[in-house]
């Protein structure tokens, strides 16, 4: 455990030899046409299998698996909870003061209650990590932040997910989103044991996109019981599950789009040299110059995609072991070990990445996601193709 904390909190560090890193970096940074180890194009995603509503005990659930055996299962649970109005909010005080005006203002007030981001809780379980380690927390915060981020829609879901959780002024739903990640099953057993000892990366790829897509599908399949009580009464629900309403409302099949509002999706994008690469696997991340997690959603005002959040992730390449050029290698003939290893780049020799990213690279990465006909649209279209029962 200590080793992992030292290595990196946010990213996993696979142990690759300098020669491998150098080979991968050069292959991936070939101008215009990078060669990925699995032959994909820079914007191509790995095929995955998805299913929803798999757990009867939850309000909504989904499973996504990659061909390599990495899997994520998400269960969404909702609980009714009493809204604690903070004593320091002027709204509540003004309402309490003008008692006679309460009825009139009441209606307006309940419409004004727009929900709190804290009502959505997210926990992620990754094998080999404690639940208070930085990686699961970082991933959870990253996804929660874009989920509760405002998704404005005129009629269907004004105020986004947060507002949807409001029952009335005194009661709300609390949403628990629990994610479990599973190991690739095909890995030799002993190799996983060793990985656990070394705390190398457990899942074969950075788990973020997998978690994000699974959460997306689980939320779409989430149902809340139908409310029978009205107004400010204590909530009282219809116990007929068939009458339950979807958290993310669905429109009539006739009106085109099945889901007018969809949860956001977080994509992992890396840059290697001049290239921008999507859905990177573990090896590709380990040589990346920069790793960004970009959350997007469909905008309802216009056709374009909307950016919800960007977070940079510490690229593991900063922690790697440098290669030694032949001219300085003490175990090579005729070469004397030098006190100060030279800092200039030698072709074929790996150097850990230092420094940050240029703004132009960030802009290009975002543009590839958001642009018309870009990767973001493609992913959302793909997800829209997944049938949610």
């Amino acid at each position: 455990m200590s080793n992992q904390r030292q290595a990196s909190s946010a990213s996993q560090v696979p142990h690759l030899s300098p020669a491998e890193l150098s080979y991968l970096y050069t292959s991936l940074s070939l101008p215009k046409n990078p060669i990925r180890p699995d032959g994909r194009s820079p914007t191509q995603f790995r095929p995955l299998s998805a299913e929803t509503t798999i757990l009867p005990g939850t309000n909504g659930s989904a499973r996504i698996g990659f061909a390599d055996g990495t899997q994520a299962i998400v269960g969404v649970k909702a609980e009714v909870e009493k809204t604690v109005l903070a004593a320091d909010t002027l709204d509540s005080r003004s309402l309490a003061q003008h008692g006679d005006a309460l009825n009139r203002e009441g209606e307006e007030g309940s419409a004004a209650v727009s929900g709190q981001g804290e009502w959505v809780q997210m926990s992620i379980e990754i094998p080999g990590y404690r639940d208070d380690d930085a990686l699961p927390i970082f991933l959870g915060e990253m996804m929660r932040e874009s989920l509760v981020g405002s998704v404005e829609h005129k009629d269907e879901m004004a105020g986004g997910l947060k507002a949807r959780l409001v029952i009335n002024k005194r009661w709300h739903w609390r949403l628990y989103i629990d994610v479990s990640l599973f190991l690739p099953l095909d890995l030799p057993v002993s190799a996983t044991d060793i990985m656990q000892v070394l705390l190398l990366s457990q899942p074969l790829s950075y788990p973020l996109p997998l978690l994000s897509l699974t959460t997306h599908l689980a939320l779409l399949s989430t149902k809340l019981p139908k409310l029978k009580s009205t107004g400010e009464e204590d909530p009282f629900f219809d116990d007929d599950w068939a009458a339950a309403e979807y958290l993310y409302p669905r429109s009539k099949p006739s009106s085109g789009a099945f889901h007018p509002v969809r949860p956001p999706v977080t994509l992992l994008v890396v840059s290697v040299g001049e290239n921008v690469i999507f859905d990177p696997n573990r090896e590709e991340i380990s040589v990346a110059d920069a790793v960004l997690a970009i959350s997007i959603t469909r905008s309802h005002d216009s056709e374009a995609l909307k950016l919800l959040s960007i977070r940079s992730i510490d690229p593991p390449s900063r922690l790697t072991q440098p290669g030694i050029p032949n001219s300085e290698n003490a175990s090579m003939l005729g070469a004397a070990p030098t006190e100060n290893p030279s800092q200039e780049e030698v072709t074929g020799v790996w150097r850990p990445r230092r420094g940050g990213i240029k703004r132009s690279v960030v802009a290009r990465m975002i543009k590839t996601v958001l642009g018309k006909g870009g990767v973001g649209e493609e992913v959302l279209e793909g997800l829209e193709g997944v049938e949610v029962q």
Partner: protein
Amino acid sequence: MMRGAPHLFFPTCPKLTACRGHGTYMNPLSTSIIATVAGNVQKTNKLLSVQPLRARYTPEIGDLVVGRIVEVQSRRWKVDVAAPLLAQLPLSAINLPGGILRRRTSADELQIRTFFSEGDLVIAEVQSVHQDGSASLHTRSLKYGKLRNGIFLAVTGTGGSGSSGSNVKGGVGASSAVNSSLAAPGGSGTGGVVRSRRQVWTQETANGGGEVDIILGVNGYIYIYKHTDGADAASSITENVSISRLEEMASSTIYSSQNDDISPQTRREIARLSQCIQVLVQHGVRVDEETVTGSYEVSLQVDLEVGDDEDEEDEWRQEGREYLEGAKARRIIELLAQRLVKQKDQKKE
């Protein structure tokens, strides 16, 4: 053999025989031998043993393995070879630079990381196996040493098909191996590297890729890299060298961590070879020289077929067509099965 139900034994399936071997135990109160693992029964005279269907790699003397250094100690390295225990590589079991027959000195001990360091990949041979099943490796040959100029992938190692060792060694059922390994596309547990005649060979690649070396470690770790002629590389540095000097030169590059220049064409073919092996593993096909070479050639053929079909596709599609998955992978397996059956028939004639 794999699918034959009469040969498949599950635990608590008693069988009355004489001697108990690996994978079995005997109830002290009775005379029946009970399998402890699910797998194939093997009978050698009176010895009865069960080979598990899918197991960890268990090192045997003489195995060629690819390993990753995970720990550096004062006089030895600990190497991950996909076995239950880490293998050790003592400093005394490597070729020290500056001559093959040199005694190790304390200076060598101090600069042990300059030979191999954490994360480095090595190709080595199992020198001995200890009581607890852990292996001792050696790299005392010019063939062995640090790996560079290529990519690494891990698949299930030997034991994956269990019976491989005895089949190949005994020469029994060599013909049925083709059947068994390819008869089960989509089956699980049958894929992986098996002990075979040649674990290392040079593959001539298409599309201007040149020569590519493939190492199939018996432990399921595979390395694919650009072929370099050791003597060529040495003589390019010095024009006229004696034979012994030449050997020294060749041995000196075994600790290099600097990649040579590798053309994009070679890189592309190395990626294709690695994918071919992934396809084999995903479809439960054993991995050896025959299947790897076969699937590589077949994949070129499939590419041509697909290329004809999808002439109208836009450019973006063309970019991703090197990715072998789904329908393409199934087609490769299909063609490979036909091809191997054909070869088998030719052998019979």
